[in-house]
């Protein structure tokens, strides 16, 4: 039982680690539709990327829409998409933007149309599934990026479109026009309008050196590179994953030792019985296979339960966390990795089991029976 338990714990940890690792990489790569830079208020560049592209963190602040428009017209910029955050509906972020945002993510509608006037909204696939919002239904946004109950009752949104599943963060967003967000927050003075950030694509990749410098030094805004910030983050989390992986490896090695000790003890305790079985006509190979089966049952049971437990923990992390709701995990390609781990663990267990099996195979039945 201890061997099975150790195997379950080790495999569970390694499964969760693999899934979280995959989720992190998958989410970060899928959520970025080829953006070269994000311009936003000064602060942590990573925070700006996480809040504007991946919709995890809170924004660094707001920037003037007038200044943003100057950037949009800059000759180095191929496309610029403004976004304005601030509200949510049942923890799904409401993003004020323009229709370029839909093009950016190559989004298609399952039903309805894109917004054409303020307070109309297009909802992501997961939003419609979880909140049960449908076309022509109304909902009210809640102030802030996490549901606090402080709602904008006076101005409800009307759902005019539902997006197809994209496997990106778009599935978890509610999109509306910038005007909607400005209306709700009583920003009517055109010179004082603000947005959260600007999502940029360069005409030429060489701008990735000169353009951020221009923004960072010449304005009160910052330009952050998504690929640079995310690779920094992955490097940091990668180290943590490695420590967890080493730890789970240690537990798995202990479980192999557990299987070995359990089988050797069993054989020592039952060597007389095994010799009796030989006298009754059980061949060496038959006993070899019986002992091997016992060990492999422990290993297969432990590794399978471990993978199932790991997957359940991962699913729970997704469904029971607020952060999880703002992350679209996308379609994960983890099955191959988990299957590979399962195979490797069971191959090692098989090799481990050979030690006691060979001992049984070589048993001298006459001397065992005489000594017993």
């Amino acid at each position, binding site marked *: 039982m201890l061997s099975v338990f150790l195997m379950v714990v080790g495999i569970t940890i390694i499964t969760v680690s693999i899934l979280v690792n995959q989720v992190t990489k998958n989410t970060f790569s899928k959520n970025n539709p080829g953006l070269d830079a994000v311009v936003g208020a000064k602060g942590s560049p990573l925070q700006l990327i996480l809040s504007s592209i991946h919709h995890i963190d809170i924004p660094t602040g707001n920037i003037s829409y007038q200044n943003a428009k100057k950037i949009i017209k800059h000759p180095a910029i191929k496309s610029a998409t403004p976004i304005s955050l601030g509200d949510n509906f049942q923890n799904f972020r409401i993003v004020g933007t323009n229709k370029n945002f839909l093009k950016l993510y190559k989004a298609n509608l399952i039903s309805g149309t894109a917004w054409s006037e303020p307070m109309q909204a297009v909802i992501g696939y997961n939003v419609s599934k979880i909140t049960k919002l449908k076309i022509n239904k109304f909902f009210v946004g809640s102030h802030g990026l996490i549901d606090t109950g402080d709602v904008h009752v006076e101005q409800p949104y009307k759902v005019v479109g539902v997006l197809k599943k994209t496997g990106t963060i778009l599935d978890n967003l509610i999109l509306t026009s910038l005007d909607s967000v400005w209306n709700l927050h009583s920003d009517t003075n055109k010179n004082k309008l603000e947005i959260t950030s600007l999502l940029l694509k360069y005409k030429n990749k060489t701008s990735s050196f000169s353009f951020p410098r221009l923004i960072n030094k010449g304005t009160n805004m910052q330009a952050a590179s998504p690929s640079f910030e995310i690779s920094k983050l992955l490097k940091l989390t990668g180290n943590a994953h490695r420590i967890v992986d080493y730890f789970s490896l240690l537990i798995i090695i202990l479980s192999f030792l557990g299987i070995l000790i359990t089988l050797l003890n069993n054989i020592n305790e039952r060597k007389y019985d095994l010799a009796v079985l030989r*006298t*009754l*006509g059980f*061949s060496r190979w*038959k006993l070899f296979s019986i002992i091997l089966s016992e060990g492999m049952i422990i290993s297969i049971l432990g590794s399978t339960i471990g993978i199932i437990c790991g997957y359940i923990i991962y699913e729970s992390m997704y469904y029971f966390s607020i952060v999880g709701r703002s992350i679209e995990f996308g379609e994960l390609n983890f099955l191959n990795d988990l299957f590979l781990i399962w195979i490797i663990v069971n191959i090692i267990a098989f090799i481990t089991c050979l030690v006691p099996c060979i001992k049984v195979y070589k048993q001298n039945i006459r001397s065992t029976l005489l000594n017993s």
Partner: protein
Amino acid sequence: MFICEDVSFDIDGQKLFSNINFNLKPQKDLLITGPSGIGKTTLLSILCGIQKPTTGKITYNSIDLYNLPENKIDEFRGKNLGVVFQNFNLINTFTVKQNLEIAVSAINTRKSIPLFNLLDKVGLANKSHIKVANLSIGEKQRLAVARAFVGDPKWVFCDEPTSSLDDKNAHIIANLIKEESLRCKASLVLITHDSRIQSLIKFSKIIRLGEQL
């Protein structure tokens, strides 16, 4: 035909016995007797493929036993031989019935074996769910006999089946062995130093081991 040809056995370079020769026709009974320590049990182990002899040949119906691979020897023993060991060699943690069931699974037969009838014959039908560890010596002996006949063997080997029993139980066991051998049409090889056995079973051949040395 069962043939034991020039069988010798050495322990640490010392001869325990040498040049044992005999043959046994089908359904005939052989008694191997001799004083304690002469190597009777070792000879039985050699005859039923548990201990390879130093020299010599054991042949069952033209099959040279020790010419077979070890796995085949085990299978041959399971399918063709029934062995009653001196110390029974029962699995003490198993019940009476389980000890017979494991013997059936060793034979790997599809034939249905009436275990209850067999237990009834040896008087253990009402103890089928009792663990072997809780049986008396006589009961263990009867169970060992029942197990030896589970697969209807062609040759049956019994090592001191009556030595530790009183007259009454020795009589029961001897009768049981004889009856079951007749039922299975098996040849019986009985090894003992118990002189009572000759009055209980009529053997067609007797070998006195000490005299052959």
